[in-house]
């Protein structure tokens, strides 16, 4: 079977929806961060697939930038989570209620 653009797009869509569903359903903050990473992975697949389709290098560059930004975001997210865990002993987002009224 030949792998076409459609296959990549379907894979990316599934991955994106998996990440989105996970983000909405799961209450563990670390899992939520991982779900965001999944969504970014889906985006990267789309970029690379289209990059190949158009024969244009821009998509590849974009993917590299995505990696860097996603890593920075995860670093900051985990740092803040560690701070929260030290005080609260939990990473369940339902327990983050200091700001609710």
């Amino acid at each position, binding site marked *: 079977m030949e792998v076409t653009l459609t296959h990549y797009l379907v894979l990316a869509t599934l991955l*994106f929806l998996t*990440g989105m569903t996970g*983000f909405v359903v799961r209450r563990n*903050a670390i899992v*939520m*961060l991982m779900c*965001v990473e999944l*969504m*970014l992975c*889906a*985006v990267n697949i*789309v*970029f690379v*697939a*289209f*990059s190949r*389709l*158009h024969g*244009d290098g*821009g*998509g590849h*560059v*974009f993917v590299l*930038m*995505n990696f860097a*930004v996603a890593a*920075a*975001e995860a670093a*900051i*997210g985990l740092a*803040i*989570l560690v*701070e*929260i865990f030290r*005080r*609260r002993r939990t990473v369940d*987002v339902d327990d*983050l209620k*200091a*700001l*609710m*009224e």
Partner: protein
Amino acid sequence: MPELGGAALWPYLIVGGGGLLVMVVDSFVRTLKKDHLSYLTMFVLIAAIAVQIAGETREGTVLHGMLVTGAYARFFNFLFAGIGVVTTIFAGGIFDRDGRHRPEVYPLLLFTVLGMMVLAAANDLMTLFLGLETMSLATYVLAGGVRGDVRSSEAGFKYLVLGGFSSAFLLMGMALLYGFAGDTGFAGISAAMTQGEPDTILVTLGMGLMLVGFGFKVALVPFHMWTPDVYDGAPAYITGFMATAVKAAGFAILLRWVVLMQPQLAFVWYPVLAVLAVLTMSVGNVVAIVQSNIKRMLAWSSIAHAGYLFLGLLALMSPARGGSDAMMRTREMGEAAGSGLLFYLIAYSVMNLAAFGVVNVLSSERGKEADDINRYAGLSRRRPVAAAVLAVALLSLAGIPPFVGFMAKFYVFAAVVRAGLVPLAIIGVINSLVSVYYYLRVIVVMYMNEPAEDSYDGTEWVSFVTAGALALLVIYLGVRPDAFHHAAEVVVRQLPF
């Protein structure tokens, strides 16, 4: 547009390099006094403004079409650097007072400003994304970085998680547009849209997903859920910064984006955006009424103001769908709505900074955030100047003449009416009337109630003077808006309608 040399990049280099410099100085200079970093940060921002005034003024692109320089970028660079200076003053004042020294705030502020400058000048999906994320990542830390404060950590985490979630949507939208155009440059995408079949599913979906991402950044209902929590949990000087600069940056790119992509947006997403604008205004104002926390109230009010600003964008889009006055050409409508929007951003920034400046000063006294509206009781007797400044800022936010908030609303709503969107303008005016109630309530508490034992107090005079100067600016711009409005018109004229 001509490709310009590297001279146009100086403001960006100064702000970015300045951020690194402040970080190094903080780490290695042991004999440093606390406020030296604040002076250095201010110096960097003022140097960037000076270079911007003295340097390259031509319209053009730099870095192989990655950034657009010219009047539009300069306008926003001035605005962001100005807000940065004011925030630095507020931050410096509070650190001096109660030992809550946070040296990392200064480099992060500079990096945020750099991200905003890049965002406002972006001419390529890559620079757009890089600018947006540079701004956002630094803001997450600014909001969530107060050590040992659970509320701040929680605010930072909520902001980061939802921000990352919305960035994923924005990126997916970009990827689909890239798939459609085969180019990441705005010019290439715009050209592909005018040539090709415009309403393919890729473009429609891509645009929609990108609007979700932008909507999150400017706190459009229903992507606004993070705003009250984040504005509440972050320290007041950071909240003021987020409410003004971050929102202005979001609208800076939205405005240029809408101008470039007008046919697409106008035909497909226009009705959705109109509904969202109405929802944003109404939800923001109605929920603000029941708040007893001034920072949450200002957060909901900032959501409502995003709705008013969005009305301006809708007016700008309307000619493309043939909805406007037949006498109005696209360019005239664009200029009227665009200049109104830019003026609104200036006005909104000045009055909001004045309000948060007062909240910040009052927060500094006990090391707690001064957020309970009831404890503003009798402020007019203890601190008459602070009460007056806050009153002016709130009246201006409510849109009462002669303050600048009135003129800003006037320009935007006038453009909306000229665009033939009279129902939207009426809803906007009704919303402004509703908002008067909750702004006035704070003023009533300050002026009519007796001061109580636990009423807030603050004495840090540098921030007082700054907030007072901003309040005078609110009045001055309200009485004489012509010069700034004219400047906004000149800036908007450079956009490619």
